[in-house]
């Protein structure tokens, strides 16, 4: 009896202690001040925005760097670091004057020499930049705030090139940093942007921290897309890498995070129901899905086989697999995006009805010999993986043998560079997708390049017609002429089929309702964002 009483007393004391511990342990941490916590689903691997095209590095670039020009919500170039610019009457010399008072994060003034060096480094890596440099005779410093760009011939894309919004973005860096070899990573993080990077708190694979740059002088215009005044309202922004979507969604729902960039579309129903969470599309135009073909090897070295794919694809099937809910996708026959300034349906209407019999016939005419088509399937990229499954099924329906090779995105990125025959380790086709700013004109859209093995993007279409039209478009200065050339280019693309369009689908972001001022854009911009 005595033992029982002793035992009960002991148990009671243990229970009280456990309750006290639980109360203490479960009391939430006090929230930090004016800090925004954002979930990123791709880690920041490099802090050199000219080293990698990874979107997270680009987004990092927007935080700490600034650009000479950028795009507004109408996708028109607007000055950012530039105060005034003039163009000579013959259209060959551009003179740019920088805004006064611009400073690097270390306090040194931004000089024209910094901008010239930055443009030169950018021009060695970026396709649009390379094209600009090809037609540039000289980039010269006039004084500390002024520099000139002299062209060899009239070129209609000077400002659109300098305003390029997606990787590689022409960010401005100090001259000593920009003079780093374009194929060597920079080590410094000194920019002139609205935020500063806190390097000592960076834990790759976990956390990236930015603080407000108190020396930044925003423009006076209201913010519009990437342009306008970048008036920062937050003191600190922390990015947390949470690769698992379910955990990320739970963290946002629990209030541990404020902002979730890159929400997968199947998470929408869960987050939509939450009373404290807002959802928004990242960009009204969304992403363009591709089925990229290898033009080097049979059967897709034959144009009839490529055209067979046009008749095989029903965009609605792909979009249902990739995006599900119809409010997240649309069918679109425009190579340069529906909803974008260069949208045209030229050539598209012919293929808007799926015709599997015609696709089968065209494969036969192309001399398809029954060998398996190697379809690379990146299983860790949900949109491309789902699209691959649809393609595999459709190929079988038109009598084509298919070998779906499952792999991770890293392997696909290496394999797609292989020019070997598919049976020797090469490939026939793969799926990918791009945000609108990466495909909305003939120069940034590498997919329509017909530059063959030397210049074309993976898949290596070889069509001189496409290259001539791209080049002509870049050099055209009259908007009507540009429009005409785009129409002709799209018609040529539908004839030559550098890739097959599989539809347009949206990107999603989610944030707590006390987060205000979020800009709808494919890049998460944090100027104008505040937390109530």
């Amino acid at each position, binding site marked *: 009896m005595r033992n029982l009483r002793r035992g009960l007393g002991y148990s009671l004391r243990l229970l009280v202690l456990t309750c006290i511990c*639980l109360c*203490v*342990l*479960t009391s*939430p*941490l006090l929230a930090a001040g004016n800090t925004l916590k954002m979930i990123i689903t791709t*880690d920041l*691997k*490099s*802090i050199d925005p000219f*080293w*990698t*095209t*990874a979107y997270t590095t680009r987004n990092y670039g927007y935080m700490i760097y600034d650009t000479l020009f950028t795009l507004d919500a109408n996708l028109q170039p607007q000055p950012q670091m530039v105060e005034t610019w003039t163009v000579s009457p013959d259209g060959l010399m551009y003179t740019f004057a920088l805004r006064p008072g611009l400073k690097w994060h270390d306090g040194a003034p931004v000089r024209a020499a910094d901008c010239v060096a930055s443009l030169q480094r950018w021009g060695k*890596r*970026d*396709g649009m930049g390379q094209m600009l440099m090809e037609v540039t005779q000289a980039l010269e410093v006039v004084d500390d705030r002024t520099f000139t760009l002299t062209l060899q011939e009239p070129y209609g894309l000077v400002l659109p090139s300098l305003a390029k919004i997606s*990787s*590689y973005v022409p960010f401005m860096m100090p001259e000593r940093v920009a003079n780093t070899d374009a*194929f*060597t*990573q920079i*080590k410094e993080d000194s920019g002139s942007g609205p935020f500063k990077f806190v390097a000592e708190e960076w*834990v*790759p*694979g*976990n*956390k990236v921290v930015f603080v407000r740059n108190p020396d930044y002088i925003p423009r006076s215009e209201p913010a519009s897309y990437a342009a306008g005044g970048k008036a920062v309202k937050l003191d600190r922004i922390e990015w*947390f*890498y*949470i*690769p*698992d979507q*379910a*955990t*990320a969604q*739970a*963290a946002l*729902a*629990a209030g*541990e995070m404020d902002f979730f960039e890159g929400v997968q579309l199947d998470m929408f129903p869960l987050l939509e129901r939450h009373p404290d969470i807002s959802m928004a599309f990242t960009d009204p135009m969304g992403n363009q899905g591709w089925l990229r073909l290898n033009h080097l090897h049979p059967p897709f070295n034959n144009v009839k086989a490529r055209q067979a794919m046009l008749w095989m694809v029903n965009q609605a099937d792909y979009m249902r697999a990739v995006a599900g809910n119809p409010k997240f996708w649309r069918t679109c026959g425009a190579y340069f995006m529906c909803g974008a300034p260069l949208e045209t349906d030229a050539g598209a209407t012919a293929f808007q009805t799926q015709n599997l019999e015609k696709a089968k016939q065209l494969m036969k005419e192309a001399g398809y010999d029954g060998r398996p088509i190697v379809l690379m399937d990146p299983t*860790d990229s949900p949109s491309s993986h789902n699209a691959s499954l649809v393609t595999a099924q459709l190929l079988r329906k038109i009598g084509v043998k298919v070998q779906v090779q499952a*792999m*991770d*995105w*890293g*392997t696909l*990125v*290496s*394999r797609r*560079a292989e020019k070997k025959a598919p049976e020797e380790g090469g490939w026939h086709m793969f799926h990918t997708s791009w945000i609108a700013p*990466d495909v909305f004109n003939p120069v940034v859209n*590498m997919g329509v390049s017909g530059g063959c093995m*030397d*210049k074309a*993007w993976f898949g290596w279409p070889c069509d001189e017609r496409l290259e001539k039209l791209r080049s002509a478009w870049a050099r055209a200065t009259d908007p009507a002429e540009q429009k005409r050339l785009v129409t002709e280019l799209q018609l040529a693309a539908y004839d030559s089929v550098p890739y097959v369009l599989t539809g347009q689908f949206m990107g999603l972001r989610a944030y707590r309702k006390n987060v205000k001022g979020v800009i709808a854009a494919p890049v998460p911009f944090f100027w104008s964002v505040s937390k109530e």
Partner: protein
Amino acid sequence: MYAYIFRRILATIPVMLVVALFVFALLRLSPGDPAAVIAGEYASPADIARIRDKLGLDNPLHVQLGIWLWNVVRGDLGTSIFSGLPVIKLIGQRLEPTLALGATTMCIAVLLAVPMGILAAWTAGTWIDRLVMMFAVLGFSVPVFWLGFLFIYGFSVQLELLPVQGYVSFTQGFFPFVRHLLLPSLTLGMVYMALIARMTRASMLEVLREDYIRTAHAKGLKPHIVLLAHALKNASLPIITIIGVGVALLIGGVVVTESVFAIPGLGRLTVDAILHRDYPVIQGIILIFSGVYVLINLLVDMVYTVLDPRIRY
């Protein structure tokens, strides 16, 4: 004894060398090219080739291996291809969360599983025993990630008692540290609890049948004295072995848990490095893991000598 310890420590060198060679070869043979990953979407073959040259990936394999091994001997595990940060620094940043997770997991697992196993053995054949064994089967069968999501949904989202994700260092406060590790440790600990409980039960049952246990009872010793002072001590060798194996297996087990709970540990660092083909990071981590594994085995062997005076090396 010291000579034995010294010999065992020396023996880790060839083991780690074999592991290093194996990992190096496996990485170079598996598909994927870090230069292509770095070069990005607009890479031309010339770009990729230039990056390969800059990273030294064009050197013959034996040269790459020699350079790496020579650097390792000098304590330099190399530099991350992507971030440009030293591998040692990256590992150092991630070591604490993994050690903390591992330690709390094993503590919880041992503190709960050993008494469960003892209880099951003591009440062998009864419903308590069956309940414990059912728990053991469930612990093995339920996927760690599913359990983790279940805990998150229950305790973090619905009840709002514990955080969903992340890690807070011990230096930032004991209670935040424990709050952030409680769910991950319970999640990961389930498997080890099942393992240790089963082994404890089996080992205790064997010992409880021994004559000296009957003698202890006959001498009038209290049941808990017989269990803990006589039976457990003699049953502990297999239990310690399985705990040692469990600690080594933790190295693999933390990967899933760290991903589910977004804990910035070595497991996630390894997965990220593999997905990005960050060769120096992968090689460095695997080398360290192999060394840790060997040392854990040595520690287990040393503990044997404490528990069983008959064991001498």
